[in-house]
């Protein structure tokens, strides 16, 4: 699913590498927790995987595609069609209601829409919303949702149209412990039903026990350790 070999990345204008990962492999169906302190490059790595950022050097393969070889438009469509992305918070477009926010991913990714089927869209959204406990909120303004509800809407949007890879960038950091665990349980469940691979990022070490596979970015990312040693 994701294969990394000697991947480096440096922000333009920056004086040092932000990412320098000799090797990292994530297989299909994995549910991986990627841990790391704040500033160690977690969001940057996700940006590379999602195709927002381009590697400076090395090999990054996502869903069998070599990201360095893809054009910007191809990377955008790869993301739109095959990757579901969940932000830390404020995942939702404020002027769309819950249902429209969920549908956003299908409207932007053509293949996702095809997989769902235009006529089935409402039904699919209702099913997902039901699974995530959002059914009664579909017509609700997103500004009137609790943070937990907002994050569940983001999960529904990420899952709609069965993307192969779900990327979550600290989606639970704004939730309390109880909510965090039930949110994760839901996320695992839904990823399993959809057969999606999950790459979950957090700086919260207490989540370790909940994941089958754990990775520490501080060990993987040489750029961070050299930087930290300075």
């Amino acid at each position, binding site marked *: 699913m994701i294969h990394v070999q000697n991947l480096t990345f440096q922000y333009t204008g920056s004086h040092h590498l932000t990412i320098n990962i000799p090797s990292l492999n994530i297989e299909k169906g994995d549910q991986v927790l990627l841990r790391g302190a704040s500033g160690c490059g977690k*969001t940057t790595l996700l*940006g590379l995987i*999602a195709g927002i950022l381009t590697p400076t050097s090395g090999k990054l393969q996502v869903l069998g595609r070599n990201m360095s070889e893809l054009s910007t*438009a191809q990377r*955008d469509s790869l993301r739109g069609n095959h990757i579901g992305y969940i*932000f830390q918070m*404020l995942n939702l477009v404020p002027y*769309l209601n819950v249902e429209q926010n969920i549908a956003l991913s299908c409207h*932007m990714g053509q293949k996702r829409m095809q997989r769902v089927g235009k006529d089935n869209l409402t039904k699919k959204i209702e099913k997902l919303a039901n699974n995530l406990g959002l059914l009664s909120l579909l017509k609700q303004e997103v500004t009137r949702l609790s943070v937990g509800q907002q994050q569940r809407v983001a999960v529904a949007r990420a899952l709609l149209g069965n993307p192969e890879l779900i990327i979550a*960038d600290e989606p639970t950091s704004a939730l309390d412990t109880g909510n965090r665990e039930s949110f994760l349980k839901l996320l695992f469940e839904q990823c399993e039903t959809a057969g999606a691979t999950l790459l979950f990022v957090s700086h919260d070490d207490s989540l370790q026990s909940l994941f089958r596979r754990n990775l520490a970015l501080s060990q993987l990312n040489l750029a961070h350790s050299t930087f930290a040693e300075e």
Partner: protein
Amino acid sequence: MIFRLFLVIKSLWNRRFSTLLTISSLSISVALLIGVERVRQGARESFSGTISKTDLIVGGRGGSMQLLLYTVFRIGNATNNISFDTYKTIKNNSQVEWTIPYSLGDSHRSFRVVGTDENFYEHYRFRGDQILELHEGKAAQELFDVTLGSDVAVKLEYKLGQKITLTHGAVESPSAFAHKDKPFTIVGILKKTNTPIDKSVYITLQGMEAIHIGWQNGAPPQEDTGTTTQNLRKEDVKVDQITSFLVRAKSRIQVLNLQRSISNYEQEPLTAIIPGVAMSELWSTVEYAEIGLKVVSFFVIVVGLIGMLISLYTALEARRREMAILRSVGAGVPTIAMLLVAEAFVLSVTGCIFGVGIAYAALLLARPLVEAQIGVLLPLAALSSLEWIYLAGLIASALLLGLLPSWRAVKNSLADGLTLRM
């Protein structure tokens, strides 16, 4: 595609206050542009429609502009008259279809007095093919009959049957000589034409001649000539001179020929002008006002567009999060750019639609007022091709300007990547 338009509209609606302000500023600009265009068009049309179907205006020796001004617009005075014999000779020319004689020089309470004959009521045309019609009464026929232009009747509140006296000379002054001994009876009132016709009173050529019996070189008679209203008959008055006359040629091809032969008339020096040519010459002297109006409305449009640019720009900061979300679900740089340009499109098109609506509503309301006040008939026709071009130009400029914030949004979203900034 439809969903993207939906996004654009939703996003604009989300900022509806600033959207509304932008649209209203744009639509006021558009309304002003169209309004100015209509006023310009109306003014030009009513100006050039003052006289029509007349091929030549003939007067004594003098400037052609002067001839046009006193004959058509009743401004200024003639320096030289024409003898009635000359008039009759030209009237009977085989190439001439009709003529309308004018004898000018007197006034009634600042309104010009025009001596003319039945040809005036029969042949005079304005605004294409419109004829003079009587609002009430009949055309002046008897020696001391007077028919009023519509404005005169309204302004002075005259009724049929009333008697009025005429004043010698075109301006009212205490020293001016009033033809008190020969009062005229109002026999008719013309319908409104919205041309200078409305601002004159009309008597017969003989009537004009009669009030000046005994006059020598423009001075009133020294002793009583013994002629009074009672013992004068129309048949007895011999018309000696007129001021100018209008000519309709039998065929348009002959007009230039006719003009040449009149100008070269041997018995008397004459001036013959083609009204269309002289009118456009006259109009060109006020063209700078037209250009001024256009420049002003152009700048109003520019201000409206800048307003739109500001509102799109200031919204961008608050929309960085929205852009990052759209990027995360696969929107590429072209999509982000397109959304912003589409906002400019929606704003400018809505502005145009409302602007045109406002313009027509205002025209509809202002039309009777403007017509009554300044005699300009504002055209209510569908949008002209020039106006369509203006609107298209406005929308095109809006799209071009929309590229600026969209370029900025793309830069922002590339810098932000998947980081949510608040």
